[in-house]
C-alpha cells in the first residue's frame, strides 16, 4: 500500500521583511503517512506546520525536497483530485448560502448537477447543518463555519483529508463531534492528516504522530510507541493517618481536610506504603499510576530542542 503522503527532505525559505532577509522555515522535513490512518502533526507556533501543509497542497512551492500523494508527484491538479482540505480559520464567500457554497465546490470538481445535489444534502446532514442550508455563510457562528468547511473538504469524497487546526475554537461538544467524524473517516477507509494544539484530542484518536520544532521533525512514530507505559509516579490519597507518618517514604506530601495526597516516585515504594497504611488502620481512597502523556513528551521535546 502506497503512503498517502510521503514527504522527503522538504525545505522552504521565505524572504521576509523590507530588507530581503531569507528565513528558513522548513529545514528538511521528512515524514510519511500511511493510507487509512489518522496522523497528528504537532508543534509549537511558528514551527512550520501550516507551511508544510501548504507545500503539500501546492499553495507554496518548495525550495527542495519531494512530496508524493498516493505515489503521485504532488504538484499536478490531478494529485489534488483525491484531496480534501480545511484551512485554519477558514474564510469563505460569505454571501453564499451553505447549499450554494457546497454546490459551487461540487461544480469545481466537475460533478453533475444531480450528484452535487445529493452530496450536498448528505454532507449537510453529516456535519449537522441541515437546518442552516439556506442561511448565508456570513451569519454562521465559528463552529458552524468550521463544520461547513469540513463539508466542503469532503465534497469530492476524498481519500485523503487534510485539516489544519480543525478543533480550534470549538466548545467541548463541538470538539467531540469533530473527533467522532474524524474517527468515522478512518472507518470509511480515509486517511486523515491534521494539526492541532489540543494534545488530548490527538492522544485520543491518532495512530501516528510527528512533532515538528523549528522546521524539523524531531520525533515521529506510532503513538503507542512514543508514549511509553512507563509509570512516572503514583498518586495515592489516604485518610485516617497524619502526613508525618509518610515522611521519608513518599514525596510531595500534602494534606487537606483529613486526607493526605501522596506522590510516590519510586514504584517499589508503593507496596511499602500500602503495608504501612494497612498496619496503621488507615484507608486508601485512591491509587492511580500516572503514565507519560503526550503532553509530557511534547514539552520535553520542545524544551529539549
Amino acid at each position, binding site marked *: 500500500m502506497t503512503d498517502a503522503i510521503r514527504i522527503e*527532505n522538504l*525545505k522552504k525559505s521565505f524572504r521576509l521583511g523590507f530588507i530581503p532577509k531569507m528565513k528558513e522555515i522548513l529545514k528538511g522535513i521528512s515524514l510519511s503517512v500511511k493510507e487509512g490512518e489518522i496522523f497528528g502533526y504537532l508543534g509549537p507556533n511558528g514551527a512550520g506546520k501550516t507551511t508544510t501543509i501548504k507545500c503539500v497542497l501546492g499553495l507554496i*512551492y*518548495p525550495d*527542495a*525536497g*519531494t*512530496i508524493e500523494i498516493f505515489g503521485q*508527484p*504532488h*504538484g*499536478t491538479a490531478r494529485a489534488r483530485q483525491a484531496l480534501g482540505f480545511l484551512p485554519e480559520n477558514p474564510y469563505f464567500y460569505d454571501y453564499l448560502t451553505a447549499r450554494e457554497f457546497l454546490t459551487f465546490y461540487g461544480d469545481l470538481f466537475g460533478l453533475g448537477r444531480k450528484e452535487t445535489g445529493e452530496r450536498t444534502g448528505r454532507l449537510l446532514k453529516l456535519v449537522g447543518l441541515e437546518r442552516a442550508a439556506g442561511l448565508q455563510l456570513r451569519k454562521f457562528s465559528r463552529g458552524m463555519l468550521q463544520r461547513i468547511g469540513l463539508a466542503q473538504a469532503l465534497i469530492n469524497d476524498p481519500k485523503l483529508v487534510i485539516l489544519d487546526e480543525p478543533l480550534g475554537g470549538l466548545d467541548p461538544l463541538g470538539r467531540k463531534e469533530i473527533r467522532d467524524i474524524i474517527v468515522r473517516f478512518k472507518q470509511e477507509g480515509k486517511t486523515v492528516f491534521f494539526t492541532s494544539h489540543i494534545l488530548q484530542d490527538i492522544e485520543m484518536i491518532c495512530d501516528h504522530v510527528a512533532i515538528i520544532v523549528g522546521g524539523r521533525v524531531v520525533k515521529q512514530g506510532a503513538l503507542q510507541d512514543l508514549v511509553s507505559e512507563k509509570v512516572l509516579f503514583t498518586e495515592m490519597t489516604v485518610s485516617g493517618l497524619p502526613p508525618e507518618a509518610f515522611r521519608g517514604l513518599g514525596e510531595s506530601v500534602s494534606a487537606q481536610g483529613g486526607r493526605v495526597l501522596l506522590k510516590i516516585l519510586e514504584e517499589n515504594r508503593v507496596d511499602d506504603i500500602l503495608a504501612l497504611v494497612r498496619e496503621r488502620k488507615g484507608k486508601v481512597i485512591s491509587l492511580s499510576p500516572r503514565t507519560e502523556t503526550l503532553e509530557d513528551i511534547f514539552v520535553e521535546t520542545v524544551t529539549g530542542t
Partner: protein
Amino acid sequence: MIRNTSPAKGSAAFLLVIFLLATCASFMALKVKTDTIVRKRVPGSSIIYIPSGKFLRYATFGYSALAADAIYLWAIQYYSTPTIDDRFNYLDHIFAIISDLDPTYTDPYETGALIASAEAGDTGLAFKILDNGAAKNPGQWLFPFEAGHIAMMNLKNYDLAMQYFKKCMDLPGAPDFTKRLYANALYKKGDNETSWQTWLEIYNTAPDERTKKIASNHLYQVKSAMDTGRLKEAVGKFRERYGRFPAELEDLVRSRLLGKLPKDLDGQDYVYDPKSGDVKAATIPWKR
C-alpha cells in the same frame, strides 16, 4: 536535492512564454496595420463645449498655465492637419481660451495670428489675436510689431502699419529698426513731413555707419518725393497758365511759380522731361 518541479511544470512555463511572445508580436503587427488605415479624424472637436476661458481658468485648479500648454500643443497638431476642412471655424475661440488661461504666453498669439493671416486668410482675426496679446501684455513689443507687418505686407494698409509701428518702437526690447519701419510706413502712407522728421532723428541718432547710410538714403527718398511733388505741382500750374509744359525747370522760377529750384539731398538737380512733364530724382536712393 532534487527539485520538486516535474518536467510538466517546466514545459508549461516554456509554452506560456512562447504564447506571450506570439501574442505580443501579433498585436504589434496589428498596430502597424491599423496605423496604415487612414481614419477621418476630427480630433478634439468636443472643445467647443468648453465654456469661456475665464471659467476654465478657475476650473483648472491652478494648473491653468499647464492647461494652456496642453491646449496649445493640441492646437498646433489640429491646425497642421489639412484634411480637417472646417478647422478654422473655432480658431478665434481656441486661441482666446489659450490667452485666458495663460495671458503672458507669447507663442500662441504669434502662431494664432500666423495661422489666421497665412492659412485662414482672415487678417481681421489676426489683428484681433495680436491686439488681445498687446492688451494683456502692454510692455511686449512683439505683438504690434507683427501686426504692423501684416498690415504692411498683406493689407498694404500703411496708415494702420504706421500706427502699429509707432506703438511698439518705444517699447523695451523692440529692435532698433522698428523706428525705421515706422518712418517708412509714414512715407508709404504719404505723410512726408513726419517721415522726414523721423528719418532725420534716425540719422542723427544712428549708432553705426550702415544705419546712417540707410537713413541718408531714405532722407534722400523722402526729400525727392517732397520736392518732385512740389515741382510737379508747379509744372501743372504752368501748364494751366500757359497751356504747355515748361521747356525747363528754370521756367518755373522765371514765371514766379517757384521761389527757388529745390535740389536733391546730394545737391543735384532734378531731372525734367519737357515732353511728359514728369519730374524725377537724378539718382535711385539705394544706388548712392
